Structure formats: structure tokens, C-alpha cells
């Protein structure tokens, strides 16, 4: 699913239960990461649940390729949203993404609060840091 499609789906939900249902569905559709890729290095620190994230650059296209996984349904769904925002973008385009703003317009901003501990903030921070290193 593209980010635009996700955006449209989530914009049409009413109430938290329905949002959660859609978020968990997004998580279900995100392919599971092979166990060998669930390394300590790939772990996003600062999450109550386990989150793994890999970011690479497609050498020919110079586009970002992100894969990730989580052991909780909700965080995995939120991760799917973040990955959809960044996947296929060039590093320069990715740097301009304001993930906070996007989550705000999706009505999910409370998931970005650090005290929620779901680590979405940590995920976005890690992506931005790694993009900076790639360029």
C-alpha cells in the first residue's frame, strides 16, 4: 500500500477502535522480517516492544529501501505507516519528510509522544539519523 492509500484509509475511519483495526491490518500486511535480520544492531532502542529496522540505499536508483518488524500488532502497524512514508524516496526527499506533521494529519499524533513508549518517535529519529549518514 502506498502512503497515499494509507492516508485515505485512515482519514475515513471514525473512532479509535476503527483506527486501531486499520493500523493492525497494516501491520498484518507488512511482511515479517526473517529472524536472521532481527539483530541487536537493527533494534530501535527506546521502545517498550521490540522493533527492528533496516535502511538501505538502492545503488542504481539511489532510492531508500526500508524494512522492519515489531512483536506487537499496533506498533507494527504504525511502523508500516512510517515505512510507507519513506520507502522509494531519495535521501534528499526523505530528509524533507516531516513525520510528526504526517502523524498529526492522520490523527495519530499521540502515538508520537515519548511517554507512550511505543517507540514511533525513536523509529523516526533513527531513520533520519541513518539517512544523514547515507548522504
Amino acid at each position: 500500500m502506498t502512503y497515499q492509500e494509507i492516508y485515505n484509509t485512515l482519514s475515513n475511519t471514525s473512532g479509535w477502535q476503527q483506527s486501531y483495526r486499520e493500523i493492525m491490518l497494516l501491520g498484518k500486511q507488512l511482511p515479517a522480517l526473517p529472524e536472521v535480520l532481527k539483530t541487536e544492531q537493527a533494534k530501535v532502542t527506546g521502545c517498550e516492544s521490540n522493533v527492528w529496522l533496516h535502511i538501505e540505499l538502492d545503488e542504481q536508483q539511489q532510492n531508500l529501501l526500508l524494512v522492519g518488524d515489531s512483536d506487537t500488532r499496533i506498533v507494527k502497524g504504525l511502523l508500516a505507516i512510517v515505512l510507507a512514508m519513506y520507502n522509494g524516496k531519495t535521501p534528499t526527499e526523505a530528509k524533507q519528510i516531516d513525520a510528526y506533521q504526517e502523524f498529526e494529519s492522520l490523527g495519530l499524533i499521540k502515538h508520537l509522544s515519548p511517554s507512550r513508549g511505543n517507540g514511533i518517535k525513536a523509529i523516526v529519529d533513527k531513520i533520519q539519523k541513518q539517512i544523514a549518514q547515507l548522504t
Partner: protein
Amino acid sequence: MSDIAQLRKDFPTLKQTIEGHPLVYLDSGATSQKPQAVIDAINLFYTKNNANVHRGLHTLSEIATTEYENVREKLAHFLNVNATECVWTSGATQSINLVAAGLTSQLNAGDVILISALEHHANIVPWQQLAARTGARLEVIPINELGVVEPDVALATIKKWQPKVFACSHASNTLGNIQDVQTFVAQAKQFGAITLVDGAQAFLHLRPDLRQLDCDFYVLSAHKALGPTGLGILYGKYALLNALPVYQTGGEMIQHVSFEKTTFRDAPAKFEPGTPNISAVLGFGAALDYLNAIDFQQMHQYEQALFVYLVEQLSVIEGVRLYGDLVNNIGTVSFSYKSEHHYDLAMLLNSYGVAVRSGHHCTQPLMQALNLNGTIRVSLAFYNNKDDIDCFISALQNSIELIEG
């Protein structure tokens, strides 16, 4: 139980909605809600009587000092001990740290500090640090597959290690198990152990008589018993308490200071340097008054009946697994649902206005022993009612449906 609907009205926080649903507060193990009387006592202190204690001759200081010391008397009466045996600390955690630090010179390499496997990190880490400082060994009473310390195993383990220090929770924060600490303490004392009981969870639900319990030290947190945060209590048998060296130093706790030498006052003053948390002490005084006005036997029976109902309702949900001792329990239950992550369930429950705790509950070794990464914990207090449990169960069923749907 005296009219519970009436008592609930005393708790302003319970009257709100969360995510459009009436709040169902089932996290009293983390902190209890506060009755209006406690909030009013703090308010009154800051709006009318604010002054430092033990310092001025002026009227306000006299009032503050008298009221502050009256709470210590009230607490001592509540625990059936002497006021001089009760030290104000910042919380149960600091109380344990004070004792663990103070025992440093009394331990030698090879001595054993014995705890149980279901302790909160606050009753593990200070002892581990004490062991590291002194060369003593930390040993652990094991639990069975449900997370219960079996009395026979406890007594045998105490006998086996003959510990110098024995520290154990009165009730488990994660599982709610009530432990027979009186028997454990008696056994540990046969081998000359110094004994400490962590009453952070048990105090509100069991109102222990410390003379009868006969432990050397008992610690508790005011905020888990209707009082304000930032206040804890260390009870210690006077001779042992007073023999501990000072923990932190400064004003108030001294007898005489010169640049060459300082002499300290006797306990409890020697452990209370600086300006204490006066407003919290006064708030806790109001909490004790509130508790004194409720018949304990009635409250206990009410809580137990509520807990039995909770366990019954949870047990019939297919896929739910309950942990811990479901008979001897303060009203706290930990559970998992199939292989679902506790995080998802807790987040979904919150969207129905239900507040529970999820995670390892500061008991990582217990989680490892039970082979879990965490649980959902429901912890009751007397201000909960059957409706709370019905709302929780229906929210849980809806959450499960959302997850599996």
C-alpha cells in the same frame, strides 16, 4: 462494606471520562487514587499554614510542626509501633536503600543476603549493590511454575543459607500473592538474620500489625495507600534502626556541627536531613484518617469478593492465562491472552477507558522465571466496584475481537 457508591464520590479522579468512556481505574498497584480529604489537607497547608517544621517559634511553624509530628504518631498507632521507629523517606525505594546502605559495615565476604524470586527491582538491586560492596552473596528463594513462593520451599531455603539479611515482599506487586512473611521472618531470625519486609503493595490491603509481624524493618509508600507521591516510610525496631549509620547528611539531623566534627541526633531525626516533604506528610495524615474511618474487616471482605469475581470473569475467557496465587491475594491479577503482546491489549483497553498496567512491572527476574516478556496487570482497591470489572471484561472481549477480527 459501608456504602461503596458513597465512598467512590470521595475520589474526584474517578469521575472522568477517557476516550469518551467513563474511567475504569484498575491500576491501584501503581498508585492509588486520592480522596478529596487528602487533596484538601495539602491545599490547606499551602493556603493557610505553610511554614517549615522544627525551626521557628512563630505560630505557623508551631502549627506545622505539631501537625507534622501528629501524623507520625498516627502512623505509629496504625502500624502498632512507636513513633520514634518511623522515618519519613521519599518512598519505599529510598527506605530499602537506606537500610541496604546502612548494613554495609555489618556484612562480610561470604555472608548471604536472601530474597525471593518475585521481588520488585527495588527489593533486588539495593541488595545486589550491598553484596557487590561487601563480597556477600545474593541468594534467591525460588518460585513454582505459577510464580508462587511455596512456604515449605521458603523455610527450607532460609535454613539452607542461614542468611545475614532476609528481605521479602509482603505481597507481590506483579501477581498480588500474599506471602506468609511472619513465618518467614521467624525462621530467618532463628539464624540471626536482619529482616526487612517490603510492604509497598500490602499496606493498603492488609493493614499489618508490625509488632505481631516482628520484622526488623518494614517499608511502604504513601502514594500506594491514598496518600501523596514523594513520601515513604521506613519502620525499624528502635535499637537496630538507631544503630544504622546516617544515610544522607545536612541540616535538621545534627546535634552539633563544627568544622572539625559533627554529631548526629538519634533516630528518626538522624535519617531526615533537610526540609521534609511536609505537605505530603499532612496529606498522608488525612489518608490515614480516611482509612481509620473505614472498617478494615468489611473493606477486606469487600476487596476479596471483588477479586474472586474478577478472577471468575477472567477465567471463563478462552485463551486467558492467569498467574500467581489466586487465593492468598491482595486483589491483583496478572494475565496473558494466547500469545498476544501485552502492549496491544493494554493500548486497546485504554481506548475503552480502562487503565491497567502492562509490561514487566519492574520484576524482570520474575518474568524470566515465568518465561514471559510481560503481562497485563489488573490491580483493585476498595473504591472499585462490580461495574468496573464488568466494563473491563467487556472491553477485553472487544479488544480480543479487534485483534482477532
